[in-house]
């Protein structure tokens, strides 16, 4: 299975060294986007080429890998990447957040608290938070260098002027270590507070844009806001229909063409863990063990 057709974790050692150097620099300057020589990966851009390269560079034989996509362990993207590393690195994989040492994620931070011996690797489509405000890359780099971030507030101002509140719901800009403004990748702003003072190392890889940035453990991460319009995490006001959780981020699932919908945890591992522990929601099938035979969908 682990045929030596590839080097360990697919990338060659020189490439991994190059990526590790970029990662070290990124950790040394929290929130700063470090350019790196992104490689072609055997997957299309937008599927996590940046995250995969970062994961490949930091993965060791003893690591346990978890991959999530929008909080879910069982989507195509998550399964493919998990299989990819199982095949090319022979590492153990898991869906349980607590067991994982490396978690590659797309658009979510797990609900379970992370620990010091874990690394969270984000897949990032657009690393530049100022991109849609200032199209010139030369100018945005200068703005980062001089910490000129007034423009970021212009965006938030526009939100309030137009919608009456800060309507940015994902990729909500944060200031890292009181210096660099950073795009937290398209995670929902519900997850922003989890980045602050997080015990786990957080690495961000953007493959197409060829940038790596990082938040070292226990680093201050502040969501930008106005004094009179403070940052507020958003969550649908409902319990999870399967596990009854009141504190998790929810996905809205349309269940028929008559407007019915259900809200379920977007973090599948968290939801399944709660169900296994005996928690029930309004639409959960009982008992939990029978779920595999179907009939759970209302």
């Amino acid at each position: 299975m682990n045929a030596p057709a590839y080097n360990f974790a697919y990338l060659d050692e020189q490439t991994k060294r190059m990526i590790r150097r970029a990662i070290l620099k990124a950790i040394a300057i929290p929130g700063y986007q470090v350019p790196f020589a992104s490689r072609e990966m055997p997957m299309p851009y937008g599927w996590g080429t940046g995250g995969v390269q970062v994961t490949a560079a930091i993965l060791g034989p003893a690591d346990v890998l978890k991959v999530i996509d929008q909080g879910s362990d069982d989507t195509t993207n998550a399964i493919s990447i998990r299989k990819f590393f199982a095949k090319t690195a022979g590492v153990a994989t898991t869906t349980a957040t607590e067991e994982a040492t490396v978690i590659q994620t797309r658009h979510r931070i797990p609900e379970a608290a992370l620990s010091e011996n874990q690394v969270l690797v984000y897949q990032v489509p657009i690393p530049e938070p100022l991109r849609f405000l200032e199209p010139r890359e030369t100018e945005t780099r200068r703005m980062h260098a001089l910490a000129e971030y007034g423009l970021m507030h212009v965006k938030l101002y526009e939100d309030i002027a137009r919608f009456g509140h800060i309507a940015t719901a994902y990729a909500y800009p944060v200031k890292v270590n009181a210096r660099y403004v950073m795009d937290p990748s398209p995670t929902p702003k519900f997850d922003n507070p989890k980045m602050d003072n997080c015990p786990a190392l957080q690495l961000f890889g953007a493959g197409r844009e060829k940038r790596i940035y990082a938040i070292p453990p226990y680093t201050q991460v502040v969501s930008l806001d106005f004094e009179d319009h403070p940052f507020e995490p958003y969550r649908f006001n409902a319990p999870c229909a399967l596990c009854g959780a009141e504190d998790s981020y929810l996905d809205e699932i349309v269940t028929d063409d008559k407007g019915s919908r259900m809200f379920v945890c977007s973090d599948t591992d968290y939801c399944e863990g709660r169900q296994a522990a005996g928690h029930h929601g309004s639409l959960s099938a009982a008992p939990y063990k029978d779920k595999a035979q179907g009939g759970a969908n209302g």
Partner: protein
Amino acid sequence: MADPDLHENEEPLLVATSLSKSFGRIAACRDVSFALYPGEVLAIVGESGSGKSTLLQLLSGQLAASGGHVSYRMRDGVTRDLATLGEAERRFLFRTDWGFVHQDPAQGLRMAVSAGANVGERLMAVGWNHYGRIRDTASDWLTRVEIDVARIDDAPRTYSGGMRQRLQIARNLVTEPRLVFMDEPTGGLDVSVQARLLDLLRSLVAELHLAVIIVTHDLAVARLLSHRVMVMKGGRVIETGLTDQVLDDPREPYTQLLVSSILPP
């Protein structure tokens, strides 16, 4: 119009000393020296290609001079050579103590964001963090430049040319700069809109005690706004003096030509 007591007990705000700039063999600007005092309006006139815009860029630190230097008295009272300022300091100066009004408002405005955010941007850049106060200040400035406050949430691309120019002025003045550079602010506007804009500028300049360096080819604008006039030709300043003196009694043949080329009203 010039106030004789203007310079009595004040130090100059901006001093240019033998400024020159050449692009290869072309000397765009040669040996320009002058001092500008707080509250003074200086018009730089001349035909196209005479070096007016190059001079404006040299003075505002956007272009490095080939020779000579520009010094500016900062808000803390210390006069400093612009060339020695770091980029961060220069950019800070540019969005706080200075204003720059472009001929084409699209260059000076963010066309896709609302007027309120356009005016508020400088405030947010210097750390204002209270939406309500930013918005109040922006509405206040829109009123001052005669833009209907009801249009505060509209993007400037929906504005007329004259409104855009007035918005650009509000955006520049919101941080109460002491010096404003203007590059043909009335260019491309029709005559009645021009007159209204000039009227507005004149009252704002007086009210805020602004120093202005205005580049124009329109002598009427110079006459209406400025205290002093500098006439440029071929990169040199050929004549300088009080506005009425230069325009009513031009000494240099070129200035005489310039003045006589205006159609009589």
